[in-house]
């Protein structure tokens, strides 16, 4: 180990050397990324049948559309052109949903050959768990990518549902990077913009797959990174720009923030007419009045499921 001139780093190195007693080294208390870990061109062969088959559906539609279009008569042209936008939208969705259908078929076949499971595996070509994990991701990616590029926000959860994720339409994850297996969503979960939800992580030569669970009303802030094995309790809020550690359990009804995520304050809803603000430069707190625009007869709606229980 090369010692640097910087005194600060020397200190940290010294501290780490103490920690480097064999066991602590093997604990994964950091978070990296879950991007596609190895790109194999041979997997590309699966895309061509999926694209072809879903393209065939469009072809049939196009054929039907043009066969009804008489090229000679003018009055046939006008409805054809009027209906063209709807036809294009129909073709677009037809393509996506046929691709979804055939991807699902392939996925069922692949899952029959090798069942997906949680655990720690070797991240090498030749290890069946790793290879099938890469294959699964690759199949799902096409459809999810198609749906992500679609301007309708409710499209994602359809793909998630089809690929076997426990989710319903009340959850929102449009603007995040979310892995598509081993996730469980409760009701009304919101995943923020550019949040990365990882259920798999490749660390060195090893692949880690662990389930992530979001309970009801969990709220994940923007640009966060959620490590595999994280469990969100009901009504938990994770602040923006935070990271959770692998297997971290966030207790219900708390607001968490920081790297790594730690308790910030309880997530209780109470009526407040005065809201405290912090002047960051001066480091002082002051009160500022806000109008609270909630009608009196609707006050009890503020209480969420967890709070009403009195936990």
């Amino acid at each position, binding site marked *: 180990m090369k010692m640097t001139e910087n005194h600060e*780093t020397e200190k940290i190195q010294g501290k780490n050397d103490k*920690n480097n007693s064999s066991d602590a080294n093997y604990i994964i208390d950091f978070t990296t990324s879950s991007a596609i870990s190895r790109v194999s061109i041979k997997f590309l062969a699966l895309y061509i049948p999926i694209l072809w088959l879903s393209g065939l559906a469009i072809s049939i539609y196009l054929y039907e559309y043009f066969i009804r279009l008489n090229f000679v008569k003018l009055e046939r042209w006008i409805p054809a052109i009027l209906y063209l936008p709807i036809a294009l939208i129909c073709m677009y969705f037809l393509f996506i949903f046929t691709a979804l259908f055939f991807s699902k078929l392939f996925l069922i076949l692949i899952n029959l050959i090798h069942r997906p499971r949680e655990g720690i595996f070797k991240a090498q070509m030749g290890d069946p768990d790793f290879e099938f994990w890469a294959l699964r991701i690759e199949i799902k990616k096409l459809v999810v990518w198609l749906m992500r590029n679609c301007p309708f926000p409710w499209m994602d959860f359809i793909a998630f549902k089809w690929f076997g994720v426990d989710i319903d339409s009340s959850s929102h994850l449009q603007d995040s990077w979310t892995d598509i297996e081993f996730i469980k969503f409760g009701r009304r979960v919101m995943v923020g913009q550019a949040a990365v939800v990882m259920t798999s992580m490749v660390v060195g*030569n090893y692949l880690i797959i662990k389930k992530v669970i979001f309970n009801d009303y969990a709220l994940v802030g923007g640009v966060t990174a959620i490590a595999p094995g994280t469990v969100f309790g009901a009504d938990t809020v994770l602040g923006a720009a935070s990271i959770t550690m692998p297997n*971290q359990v966030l207790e219900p009804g708390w607001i968490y923030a920081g790297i790594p995520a730690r308790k910030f304050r309880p997530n209780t809803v109470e009526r407040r007419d005065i809201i405290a603000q912090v002047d960051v430069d001066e480091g002082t707190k002051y009160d500022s009045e806000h109008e609270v625009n909630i009608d009196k007869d609707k006050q009890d709606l503020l209480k969420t499921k967890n709070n009403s229980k009195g936990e």
Partner: protein
Amino acid sequence: MKVGPFTSLVLVKKRDLIYHIFLIWISIIPVALEYWVYWQLLWDYERPLHFYIFLPLLGFVMYLTAVFTAMVFAKIILIFVNFIHKPKEGVFLRDPSDKDYRYWGLRNVIKQWPFWLTHRFPFPFLDNLAFKLFGVKTKFSNSLFEGWVDTEFMEFGKNVVIGQGSIIQSTIIVGNLLIIRKTTFDDNVRIGSHCLVMPGSHIGKNCILNSWSATVVGQVLEDGWIYLGGPAQKFKKNVFFEEDIKDKIKLRVDNLEELSQTYDSQYDKWNRKKIKKEKKEEEKRRIMQGL
């Protein structure tokens, strides 16, 4: 998410539009030609089945043709541009009168369309091809798909993975200056999500960068360490490349408070220094008062 290979458009002028229009035009011509040939070969009023069955495949081939034509013509223009003015590293003035700055903007404008096209494919394969063609040393096994990666003065080993939403730069604009420095990645590097790698960084072999880390300009990360913090500092040794440690790996955090303290010291280096300074000054003041 709008991510992808990053081609900066800082210095866009209206006359640069001509490159875009030329490249878009020239890449659509062979596509149209392909469709015409296909039409001539397979269209039959009596039996239209063949035409419609192979149409989706043609669509795929047409997309590939557009990508390759755009790449080839962009490369030809780029060769001419680089012949007139060779791209080089260094610190330049951020002003249109500076030749290096001007040509840096021009190079990015030329690369914009082919990279946009290749990134429409949901898999990193075509992106890697475009990187290779435009002179970035990379391997097909790399996954540079989910982040913003600069498209020149980069070098990658094999099995490099760039995490979601990371920003990998080889050029940066600071105030009135444009800094261009080569960023290099060795084999088996894994960059976490939301990382920021600044120009001139060298990431050593088998390194892991934690999520939300950043490197400073010209920082060198040693081989085989896990780094975290902003600026990135050593956290612990990367032992995860050893054989047969499957049973030893543990997915747990024993003491979150201790870990939080370690993380805080790594992430908040500048603030800690400031606090230390203040404390020292306070002590001095006390001593002075005591005397």
